[in-house]
């Protein structure tokens, strides 16, 4: 099924933030906002919850740390113990560097991979961009149109009265 959207185009981040607040206050649901850079404060006005990616990073790091310690203790302590430089088989202080590195590695990669998955970012040739200017210099607010429910004129007025420099319609083929 095709989806129809109304796009309000803005060219200033402050106008955009006030517009989002007013439009949401007027009871209109905003589908998404596209911007060329991260606009500070947009999370609050759009009601985006804080990302839980740091939790993923923490557990990734915890896994990396445990794995590294287990690996070194098992390999040098149990699987094939050797005396190296007169040190004990399980010489924890000299295991710290590798443990630290693997903690960082697993933490970073688990978080980044999760980021790509949850943001549905993957290499693909077809990209659905509502308005190509949103990666250049415009802020694009997309509002989904429900046939027979949405009052197009009122929506147009609402967007324009809140500083949109353009209001366009866009149909997305599913």
């Amino acid at each position, binding site marked *: 099924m095709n989806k129809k959207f109304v796009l309000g185009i803005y060219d200033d981040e402050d106008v955009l933030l006030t517009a989002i607040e007013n439009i949401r206050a007027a009871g209109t649901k905003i589908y998404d906002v596209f911007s060329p850079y991260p606009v*500070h404060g947009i999370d609050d006005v759009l009601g985006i919850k804080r990302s839980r*990616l740091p939790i993923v990073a923490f557990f990734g790091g915890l896994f990396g740390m445990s794995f590294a310690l287990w690996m070194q203790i098992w390999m040098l302590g149990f699987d094939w113990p050797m005396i190296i430089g007169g040190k004990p088989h399980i*010489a924890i202080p000299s295991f710290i560097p590798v443990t630290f590195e693997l903690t960082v590695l697993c933490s970073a990669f688990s978080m980044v991979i999760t980021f790509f998955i949850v943001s549905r970012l993957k*290499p693909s040739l077809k990209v659905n961009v509502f308005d190509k200017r949103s990666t*250049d210099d415009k802020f694009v607010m997309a509002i989904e149109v429900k046939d027979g429910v949405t009052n197009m004129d009122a929506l147009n007025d609402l967007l324009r009265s809140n500083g949109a420099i353009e209001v366009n319609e866009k149909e997305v083929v599913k």
Partner: protein
Amino acid sequence: MQHVSPIREPLVTGGKTYHDITEDVCRQVEAKPNARWAAALAVALVGLAIFIYSVYRTLWFGIGEWGLNKTVGWAWDITNFVWWVGIGHAGTLISAILLLFRQKWRTSINRAAEAMTIFAVICAAMFPVLHMGRPWLAYWVLPLPNTFGSLWVNFNSPLLWDVFAISTYFSVSLVFWYIGLVPDFATIRDRATGPIARRAYAVLSMGWTGSAKAWSRYETVSLILAGLATPLVLSVHTIVSMDFATSVIPGWHTTIFPPYFVAGAIFSGFAMVLTLMIITRKVFFLENYITLEHVESMNKVIILTGSIVGIAYTTEFFIAWYSGVEYEQYAFINRAFGPYWWAYWSMMTCNVITPQLFWIRKIRRSLTATFIISIFVNIGMWFERFVIIVTSLHRDYLPSSWAMFSPTIIDIGVYVGTIGLFFTLFLLFCKFFPVINMAEVKAILKSSSEVKHHGHAATMHATEKGLNTNRHHNE
């Protein structure tokens, strides 16, 4: 909306708009390569050819092609390794540590500096791998099962820590760099006209649309990656310094090494960033983004780290005397007045004296002076590693095994070759990737740019004069 004090100089000059930023940065990606770029690439490719030939000789005939001997078993290879890794550190410092410190001037240099990090680490990795003698067995440094043919790797060895540190550092830096590139690739994709460019950048941009939710996550990921990369970068050069510090060679066995190496790494890295950025801004007309303010900020980091390095040299000398260990004392006297005195004093001049010139504001803000001093620092830091490695090794406990080291043409070839490799990679990056992080520069544009005002726009020239001609005057 952050407030930036009006006495601070704007970070973007020339009254740029968001669209101007896109245009200015995408220009060299979209346009045909200019003659200066092509000429530079030709020179870099000559360097790369030298690299390939030297590596071929090293692999075919073995390490005997190098000037190493029984006494000096580590020389140019490890010197170059440490030098390149150190250079890489500035990129992470700029993108991660300055992000945590909320230093906004990082935004227009972080992309190129991170690229420099990645290419420098690639060059660095060549040396230990080639020094193995049989690089096709390089995977033996990984913890592989005993049944495979060797025992488990020795986790007590700093050389093995290096394997983990460098590969983690490379991977995390690459990911950090790529995450930052994704939105900019999307910008190029949406502007691309040719079918190949559109497809290539579509794949690279991972379908980025710039939705608010994605940006929110992007910022979280950047912040956490910065938080991870900061201790990581410190750990990498710490571990590199432990290659020396955990041994019993006089001149190496010192606890000062980790902080001293980290400071030196940042010092040399910033010098390399300056060398590259002064050229890049000129060749690609990015003077409005990489301004004198940026150059001055980097020069201030150079004074700080250069002074730390200077204090470290003095401390080492003092502690050698204070320790009362005659081998240690001799190692340092030999450094300064022995057969390699010229290397020691080149290091002292380039690293301790020249950067102190940056206390003078005029020199700090002069591009020519900065460029020359940055080259001096690059040379000085190479000599520092040479001094630490070769002068400590060539005369240790047993006078009967004392020897001198002199490089062969292949030694020089591998080193010069990695410079060629580095610049080949860097030039390709400049051509096909956006050299400035467009999204981040756009994000600071509103709070820190020169405002264009009805006809009498403040120009580059006006801002270079000083503080008073900036935005508060024009507003």
